[in-house]
């Protein structure tokens, strides 16, 4: 989905502040939220990591941007626990003593129609182009690289295709590629001449560039 989570290249954000000697967690509830996230996936087995990432993406955009990271973790986890029938939204709100904002529903047609690519189609050095797909569900090709051409630097092992895994599609694994894009091409007039962005992209997201 072209959601608020897909932040790469959005302008208007300010300085980055680094906290010296930052603790693992600042507040006890953050450790609990992390543990609940983990337990929901590996103990309750309520959902997989792709569903979890997408659940966070489905948060109300205003909530997403103002929330602490672990508030996103908790909201994404709680939303799926409710959607999968383990918990009820009413019970959560009653226990919390106030509104419990959850993520919005999955889109009705969340996946782009991309044929599986069980065999790797690209080699190191190949020129590839990212498809200009705009699926309404989970997709891990950031908008900033869609439609752009890059060069394959490395072929990684096969990993589960996230769009399918997030939306109950048939299980499939595909190689991912580290594809290098010239910054000047992604951000005309801005990027340094020598600079580049390398994006890790599943085979299905790519097409060959005709030579």
């Amino acid at each position, binding site marked *: 989905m072209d959601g608020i989570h897909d932040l790469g290249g959005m302008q208007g954000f300010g300085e980055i502040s680094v906290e010296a000697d930052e603790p*693992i967690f600042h507040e006890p509830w953050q450790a609990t939220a992390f543990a609940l996230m983990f337990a929901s996936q590996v103990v309750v087995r309520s959902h997989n990591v792709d569903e979890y990432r997408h659940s966070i993406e489905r948060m109300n955009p205003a909530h997403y941007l103002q929330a602490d990271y672990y508030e996103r973790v908790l909201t994404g986890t709680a939303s799926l626990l409710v959607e999968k029938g383990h918990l009820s939204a009413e*019970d959560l709100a009653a226990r919390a003593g106030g509104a419990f904002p959850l993520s919005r529903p999955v889109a009705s047609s969340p996946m782009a129609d991309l044929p599986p690519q069980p065999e790797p189609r690209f080699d190191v050095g190949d020129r590839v182009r990212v498809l200009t797909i705009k699926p309404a569900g989970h997709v891990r090709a950031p908008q900033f690289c869609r439609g752009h051409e890059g060069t394959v630097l490395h072929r990684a092992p096969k990993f589960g295709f996230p769009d399918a895994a997030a939306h109950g599609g048939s299980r499939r694994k595909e190689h991912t590629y580290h594809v290098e894009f010239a910054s000047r091409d992604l951000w005309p007039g801005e990027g340094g001449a020598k600079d580049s962005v390398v994006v890790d992209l599943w085979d299905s997201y790519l097409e060959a560039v005709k030579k």
Partner: protein
Amino acid sequence: MKKQNAASIEQRTQAVRDALVEQGLVTESDLATFAHMPEDWKPENGAAVVARAWTDPEFRQRLLADATAACAELGYKGPQGEYIVALEDTPAQHNVIVCTQCSCTAWPVLGLPPDWYKSPEYRARVVREPRRVLKEMGLDLSPDIAVRVWETSAETRYMVIPLRPAGTEGFSEEALAALVSREALIGVAMASQPTGQRVI
């Protein structure tokens, strides 16, 4: 979302915890285990990997060829470390890591990511204006040095091998590791210069 009506985040977290535990879906013990698990994941692990690579040419080769296995040699493996790739800085090329869409990180060698790495500011900006971001963070790179920004959009988890600082010849692995911060492993800082006092 009407923020004013929302229960506090502490109350909401407690609500999920209580609901799961009361239904027997998870135990208090499960949650304690997972809450403490991140204590084993820390940037000191990545720093030790870097120090070993700086001092052991054969390890460096193994790290560049298969960082997952090389990190496991030192005992660093686990969730979000299933496929680690090490990015070696050179005098001509600087590497920096981001996850624009969420906040993926190589937990076993970098630790859970710090707040700045998870901030919308870093995620939005570093792919588009890395030199400005790095300069604001204290790292002013020469235009001669190419900047490669690595977007953690799939399952590869990256770590940066920064340049070994000058003046560290003969340093022990421990002394070298102390020069490598979490920020250096992500690529927003260089390895620290050794202080005046020589540590061996």
